[in-house]
C-alpha cells in the first residue's frame, strides 16, 4: 500500500515536470532562435534606416519601429481612456442601475471578437471611407481591441477596493465622481498593470493591421497614410524568398519581443509584493 502511494506520488511529480518541460522548451527554443538569428542584423542602421530592397545589403526597420510605436500610442490614446472610464462605470455606477450589467456584457462580447473582425470593422468604417490604409484606421482597430481588456480589468481592480473605503468617502460628503477618483487612486497599481498588459497585447497584433494600417516602405507621413509596423514586416519579410528580408524579419521579431518583455518587466516592477488595491 505504502509503496503504491510512494510510486504514484513520484509518478505525479514526474508528470508535472514533463508537462512543464513541454511548455517551456518550445518557448525557450523560440526565444533562443529569434535572439540568435535576430541579433546579427541589429545595429544602429536597423533603427535608423528604411527597409532594404530584395537581395540588397544594409538597410533597417526604422520605419516599422516608428510605425509600431505610433500605432501603439494612438491606440492607447483611444483605448485607455475609454476602457478606463467604462471600467469605472461598470464598477462604481453600474451596480445601482441596470446599464452596468449591459455594459459589462458588451465588454465580454467585445473581448471575445477575433482581432481580424475588429480589423474588418475599421476597414469598412475608415479605410473604405478615406480610400486609403492609414495610421488612423490601425489605431482605431487596435484601440477598439484595447477597450474591453482595459475596462474589464479596471472594473475588477476597482471592485477589489474594499467597500468600506467607498463608504468612508461618501459619508464625508464627498461627491460620487470624486469618490470614484479616490477609489481609482487606491487601485492605481492594478490599473497601471492592466493598461500595460493591454498595450503589450495589442503591440503583437498583425491581422487587423493588414486590413487597416497597411504597410509602407517609407517613414510616417501623416495619420491618413499607411505606415509600416514590426508585425506586418515580420509577416511580409518572413514569408518572402529573399535571405536579406528574412534576416530583417528575425531582427524585427527580436525587437518586438524585447518591447513586449520590457512591458511585462515593468508590470512586474509595479506589482512587486503589493496588495492588488494599494
Amino acid at each position, binding site marked *: 500500500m505504502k509503496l503504491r502511494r510512494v510510486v504514484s506520488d513520484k509518478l505525479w511529480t514526474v508528470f508535472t515536470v514533463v508537462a512543464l518541460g513541454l511548455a517551456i522548451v518550445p518557448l525557450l527554443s523560440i526565444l533562443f532562435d529569434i535572439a540568435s538569428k535576430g541579433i546579427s542584423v541589429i545595429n544602429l542602421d536597423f533603427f535608423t534606416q528604411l527597409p532594404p530592397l530584395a537581395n540588397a545589403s544594409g538597410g533597417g526597420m526604422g520605419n516599422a519601429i516608428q510605425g509600431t510605436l505610433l500605432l501603439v500610442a494612438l491606440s492607447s490614446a483611444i483605448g485607455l481612456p475609454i476602457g478606463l472610464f467604462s471600467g469605472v462605470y461598470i464598477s462604481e455606477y453600474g*451596480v*445601482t442601475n441596470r446599464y452596468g450589467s449591459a455594459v459589462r456584457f458588451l465588454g465580454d462580447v467585445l473581448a471575445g471578437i477575433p482581432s481580424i473582425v475588429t480589423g474588418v470593422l475599421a476597414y469598412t468604417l475608415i479605410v473604405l471611407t478615406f480610400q486609403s490604409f492609414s495610421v488612423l484606421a490601425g489605431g482605431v482597430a487596435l484601440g477598439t481591441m484595447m477597450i474591453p481588456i482595459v475596462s474589464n480589468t479596471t472594473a475588477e481592480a476597482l471592485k477589489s477596493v*474594499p467597500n*468600506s*473605503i467607498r*463608504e*468612508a*468617502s*461618501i*459619508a*464625508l*460628503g*464627498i*461627491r460620487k465622481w*470624486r*469618490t470614484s477618483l*479616490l477609489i481609482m*487612486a*487606491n487601485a*492605481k497599481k492594478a490599473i497601471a498593470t492592466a493598461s500595460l498588459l493591454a498595450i503589450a497585447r495589442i503591440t503583437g497584433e498583425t491581422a487587423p493591421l493588414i486590413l487597416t494600417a497597411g504597410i509602407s516602405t517609407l517613414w510616417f507621413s501623416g495619420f491618413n497614410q499607411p505606415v509600416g509596423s514590426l508585425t506586418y514586416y515580420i509577416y511580409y519579410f518572413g514569408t518572402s524568398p529573399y535571405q536579406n528580408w528574412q534576416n530583417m524579419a528575425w531582427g524585427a521579431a527580436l525587437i518586438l519581443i524585447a518591447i513586449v518583455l520590457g512591458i511585462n518587466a515593468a508590470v512586474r516592477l509595479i506589482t512587486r509584493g503589493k496588495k492588488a*488595491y*494599494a
Partner: protein
Amino acid sequence: MLESVTSLDVEERQRLEPHDALETKMEVVGLDAWYSTKQALVDVNLNVRSNKVTAIIGPSGCGKSTLIRCLNRMHELVPGSRVTGSVLLDGKNIYGSDLDAVDVRRRVGMVFQKPNPFPNMSIADNVTAGLKLAGVKDESSMKEVERRTLERVGLWDEVKDDLKRSGASLSGGQQQRLCIARALAIEPEVLLMDEPCSALDPTATAKIEQLITSLKQTYTVVIVTHNMQQAARIADYTAFMYLGKLIEYDETTTLFENPRQELTERYITGKFG
C-alpha cells in the same frame, strides 16, 4: 405583544418619549426602510436631542445600523433599498427635494464599526481628506485643522512626529480615533457612530468612550452599540429596538432601571438576544 407596540397611537407614543424642554436636533418621523423586499425598519419615531449622546441598542439584526444609516442618507447607497417617512434635521426633512444628500452627509458625519482610514493617504491627509476632496485648497489652514482635530481626538501627541506615515500603519484604536478626526474635520453637527468600539480592546474602548463624552459639548452624538454597559456609561438617552421597531426610548437611567416595556426589560436583563 409586538402587535401592541406597532399600533401605538400618537398619544401613547408621546408618553413613551422623554419629556423635557431640550432642543431636538434630529427627528425621525414614521420611518420605514427596506432592502429590496425585506423591511428592516417599521414606523420608527425618534427625537435626537441636541448636544446629547443617544445610544441605540437591540439584538443583532434588529435594524440599528439601518436606522443610523438613514440619518445621513447612507442607506440609499445599497442597491434596491428604499426609505419612506421623514428625518428632520433642524426641522428640515433630509429626504426633501431641497436638500442634497452630499450636504446632509457633511452635516451628519459617520464613524464605522471597522476603522477605515484611506489606505493610500498619510495620517495628515486622512484628517483633511473631507476638506481637500470637497475642493478646499487653502494649504495653510490644513496644518491648523490637522493639529486641532488630532488634538481633539487625543491622537496628536501619539502621531505628531509621523504625520506622513500611512494611516493604515496605526493600531486599531488609533485608526478609529483617526477616523473620528476625519469625520470631525469637516465640522459636522451630528456624529453617527456604528459600534465604533466593537473591533477594539478595552483600553482603546475606554479612550473612545471618554472622547465621545467630551464630544457632546460641540456635537450631537448617536451611537449604536451591542454593549449595554457602554450605553449605560456614555449615553444620555437610549433607544431599544427589536425586529425593526423602536420599542422604547427614554433617558438612559430610566430605560435601564425602569423600563416600561416587558420586551425592554427582558433584553436588558439578558433574557434574550
